[in-house]
């Protein structure tokens, strides 16, 4: 059991990881991340990379939807922009890997801000519809601007190069995707300790009183759109290096719903929620596939029979978690923590 920690300065009181126990967990997590590639096979490394990419994109959407209260269904299309930027930069310009990712983020941020312009006037479902419209326009562009995007055949991308090493296998990419994911999640967590992050939350909670405090709504809403799209762009860029081929169908509309679901299931407006949501949405279908695979020795046609059931179970799990805890997995995690915090004196 732990008791309240005594803070002796404002700086310590405002630290992200403020107790020794939290730091210990953090260190253990880091060790686990470092050891993982040596213990895991290619399949697990593939999943780990995908989870990392999804965490980046979900965290971005969480900034916009969870923290600023602007519902967007354009995250996949924004990832598409980032992926195409990387594909073009890599094939046409041959610029370095990290620079291409940065460019993917910046270009996508610009596109995101344009898409965000209606957010001053429309909210909620109406804004969601506006972002859907934007993603269909982007899809149309991917498909029809053949000279640049390669049309329906898309573009293929050579493996990423970093310090003369070729990052082709998941093992190599893991060492790039994991630190980038950590940095971007940490940056988002940082932001919500400062005036900018607080302004986003203020707009979500009560935009009228945000204005009275001197927060210009349009500027901050666009900033949130831009930042969220920056995350999507970088995620899309990593996606492009990971799968090495980008077509208009790489980023279908359901992929946007996937990210929105991840934000909601994980917990809107919490950094941990974005992480847990992305992990849940990526790994649960894989876990269900695994279960079906394990059943096949006993049921010869399990794969054929159970595949549709798998989707239903996945859907039911999402609904189940939402009913169990509307504030998402992050809240469930917090409750577990509180339990151990006070254990064994209070249960």
């Amino acid at each position: 059991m732990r008791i309240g920690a005594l803070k002796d300065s404002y700086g310590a009181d405002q630290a992200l990881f403020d107790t020794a126990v939290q730091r210990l967990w953090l260190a253990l997590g880091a060790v686990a991340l470092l050891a993982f590639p040596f213990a895991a096979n290619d399949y697990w490394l593939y999943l780990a990379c995908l989870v990392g990419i999804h965490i980046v994109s979900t965290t971005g959407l969480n900034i916009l939807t969870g923290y600023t209260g602007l519902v967007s269904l354009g995250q996949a299309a924004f990832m598409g922009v980032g992926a195409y930027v990387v594909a073009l930069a890599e094939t046409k310009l041959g610029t370095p890997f990290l620079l291409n990712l940065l460019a993917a983020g910046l270009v996508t941020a610009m596109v995101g801000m344009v898409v965000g312009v209606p957010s001053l006037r429309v909210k909620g479902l109406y804004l969601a519809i506006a972002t859907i419209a934007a993603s269909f326009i982007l899809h149309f562009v991917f498909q029809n601007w053949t000279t640049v995007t390669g049309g329906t055949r898309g573009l293929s991308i050579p493996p990423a190069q970093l310090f003369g090493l070729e990052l082709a296998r998941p093992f190599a990419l893991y060492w790039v995707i994991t630190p980038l994911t950590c940095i971007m999640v940490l940056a988002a967590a940082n932001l919500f300790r400062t005036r900018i992050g607080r302004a986003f939350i203020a707009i979500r909670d009560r935009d009228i009183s945000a204005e009275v405090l001197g927060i210009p709504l349009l500027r901050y809403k666009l900033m949130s759109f831009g930042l969220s799209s920056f995350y999507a762009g970088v995620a899309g860029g990593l996606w492009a290096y990971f799968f090495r081929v980008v077509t208009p169908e790489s980023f279908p509309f359901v992929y946007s719903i996937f990210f929105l679901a991840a934000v909601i299931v994980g917990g809107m407006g919490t950094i941990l929620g974005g992480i847990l949501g992305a992990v849940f949405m990526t790994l649960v279908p894989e876990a269900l596939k695994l279960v079906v695979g394990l059943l096949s020795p006993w049921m010869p046609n399990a794969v054929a029979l159970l595949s549709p059931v798998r989707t239903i179970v996945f859907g039911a799990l999402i609904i189940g978690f939402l009913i169990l805890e509307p504030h998402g997995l992050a809240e469930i995690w917090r409750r577990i923590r509180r339990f151990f915090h006070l254990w064994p004196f209070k249960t």
Partner: protein
Amino acid sequence: MPKARGFDGEENEDEDRVGRPQVAAMTSTGDAALSVSGLTLNFGGLRALSDVGFDVAEGSITAIIGPNGAGKTSLFNCISGFYRPQAGAIRFEGRDISRLHPPERARLGLARTFQNIALFRGMTVLDNIKLGRHVHMRTNLLDGLIYWGRAQREEIEVRAEIEERVIDFLEINHIRNHPVASLAYGLRKRVELARALAMRPKILMLDEPVAGMNREETEDMARFILDVKEEWGVTILMVEHDMGLVMDISDHVVVLNFGQVIARGAPAEVTADEQVIRAYLGAGDIGQLKARIAGTEAA
């Protein structure tokens, strides 16, 4: 609005006798912190404010009173920039701010609280108050993402300042880390005042600061408002129904009825005014008014 239409006749009568000449006499003086003139606001067919004008002297407490639906909150919304009046001017330290958006007015030093408390429910008391410092902080997006360095330094500075100047002053140390949604009504009002004070405003507008408070909470709030005026030198404009509080702490009272100024002056003058008594009679508040005045005199 049937209520408004029912009183149409009386409203015109008032205007003939009092409205016009008074407005003419109210041209702004040099040392007014805030001056409102000729303000007219319509909602479709409903005239919420008509030709409202008054000055708020620098460093004073000016109270706006009037029956329910008189247009007090609408007037506040015009001053903070949420409603665009059809006519009239609002001057802040002599400068016409009628065209500025609410955030720009805030940046000039205009702070306010709301009649039905507008705190950010998803945040702690401390974060709510920190938002009051928003316009005075410099951290940009990139600083914020990096945090260590400039942003952290500023956060710590702001935290220290808020702790010393606002949290200690309003005696809310014990709740600083509570989510605002968990607080009792009276404390929420106090936190909203804290957030407004964190802005270090020149003019503070309070919309019914003690509504729904018990006696003790009301007395605390009265003390805070007086201290803000005296120690911080902030000019205060407040809407309040509690006549006891108005009589006790305000320097100047403006009475609004059906969107018109029907009386202005020192508290004692105003409450003796025939017009004012009739206005409250019309709204069925006379018993309340008399009881409160009597209450103040007894105290």
